[in-house]
């Protein structure tokens, strides 16, 4: 009698621990936090040694910082501008013409030139938003994925959130599965595309899913379950539909479990009560 009691106590302890662990995932931050990607390139200070070890090391500052007039510097007029706004990225083009050309085919360049209006209250990214010009970075694919999550997520937070809830994001970011797709795998890196045209999107899907059908494009990687349609205007109907489906299953799960947990608990109590009575 003693030993099975011990076994059951352990079992109950395991169930409780498991329940607490599951609950912990829902309230609070992810347990292992990624390092925050605080951009160093806004800093006024440059570490000489690290700079000289990088790919651009040894190059004159003026080779890239072409528009700084030593007489006028520092210029209090542009103190409030960010480092990426201050810098003239034409300077990159002289050595990296191909990347520069690709960039100009993408949607970020269209926002920069003003041909496309963006709802995001943030200047269009250029080279420096992703690439650190001063220091060399050797990153593994997983680190690149993490960097994308941090950098792209700064301006696209809701897309980041939905990506992390999607299987692609869960496996790539949380489970360190390098074969999963990240932001740039679908949307491109230099030539960034929005993928709102199905014929373009299906090509992207086929990079990993060769048999992807036209319909498969309708699958929302960045799915939102919401009743407020303006959150994602292009998929408003789907968002409401997904919200209702989600609501149905949450109500079903909670009500079934709540009823039967209570039922079982009362039953246990009744059993113990009778056992105590018999003594």
């Amino acid at each position, binding site marked *: 009698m003693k030993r*099975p009691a011990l076994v059951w106590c352990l079992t109950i302890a395991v169930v409780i621990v498991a329940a607490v662990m599951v609950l912990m995932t829902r309230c609070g931050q992810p347990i292992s936090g990624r390092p925050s990607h605080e951009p160093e390139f806004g800093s006024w200070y440059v570490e000489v040694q690290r700079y000289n070890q990088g790919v651009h090391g040894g190059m004159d500052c003026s080779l890239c910082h072409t528009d700084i007039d030593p007489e006028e510097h520092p210029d209090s007029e542009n103190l409030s501008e960010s480092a990426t706004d201050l810098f003239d990225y034409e300077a990159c083009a002289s050595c990296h013409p191909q990347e520069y050309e690709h960039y100009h085919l993408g949607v970020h360049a269209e926002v920069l030139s003003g041909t496309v209006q963006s709802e995001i209250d943030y200047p269009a990214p250029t080279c420096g938003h992703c690439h650190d010009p001063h220091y060399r970075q050797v990153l593994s694919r997983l680190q690149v994925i993490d960097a994308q999550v941090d950098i792209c997520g700064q301006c696209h937070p809701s897309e980041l959130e939905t990506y992390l809830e999607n299987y692609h994001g869960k*496996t790539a970011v*949380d489970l360190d599965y390098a074969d999963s797709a990240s932001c740039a795998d679908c949307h491109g890196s230099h030539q960034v595309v929005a993928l709102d045209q199905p014929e373009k999107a299906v090509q992207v899907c086929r990079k990993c899913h060769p048999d992807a059908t036209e319909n498969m494009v309708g*699958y929302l990687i960045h799915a939102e379950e919401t009743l407020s349609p303006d959150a994602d205007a292009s998929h408003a109907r789907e968002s409401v539909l997904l919200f209702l489906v*989600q609501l149905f299953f949450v109500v079903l*799960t909670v009500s079934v479990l709540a009823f*039967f947990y209570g039922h*079982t608990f009362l039953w246990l109590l009744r059993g113990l*009560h009778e056992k105590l009575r018999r003594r």
Partner: protein
Amino acid sequence: MSETVTHYWRLNLFHRFIHVLVMVSFAGAALSGMALKFTTAAWARLAMQLMGGVPGAALLHRVCAMVIAFYGFLHFIYIVYDIARHKGSIFRGSSMLPRPQDIVDLWQHLMYFLGRRPRPQFDRFTYWEKFDYFAVFWGVLMIGLSGLVLWFPEIATQFLPGVAINIAQIMHSDEALLAVGFIFVVHMFNTHMRAEKFPVDMSIFTGKVSEDELKKEHALEWERMQEDPALMEEARVK
């Protein structure tokens, strides 16, 4: 166990075999699935590593899925055989189909927990056993069908819109959470943790129940057996 106690068959070899398949495949599918559902938690990452990372867990999950499909198919054949054997009388008293009396039983049982009524008398299958069975039935269908969509999205989207994959994800993961929360707490406690069964009820593995247990737990079934000696003879363990 003393020799004088008479035992009766409650589960045949096929029932027990299917139950072992259900147990093993459910445990494997639940572990690999929950580790993917809760990826932000440390335990989920550890479990994933132990299963061989994402590819290993995916393989385990799919092997378990195939076992589930296999027992689902076997069970379907068995139902057809069983109905044929009983010549269509599936609404007999010892049937597993739900009936109004089950609601009454549930209410009376709850009142008994609170000490307001004597314990109700049950037939061959009690209301919670029926619920367990149909929960698995519903769960396998819902989780299985949505799982197929997730496994073969290229084929599924040939006749379904893309958003069906999103719906399948919600269905699959929420239903699975319900199943895990139900099986590991309600089903386990109801069968093994009750004061009279504690610490373990072995009948799912042996297939037999003692006469005392049958009288107490399934009184109506026992009465029917008393009236029909052939039934009694068929059920008794020789």
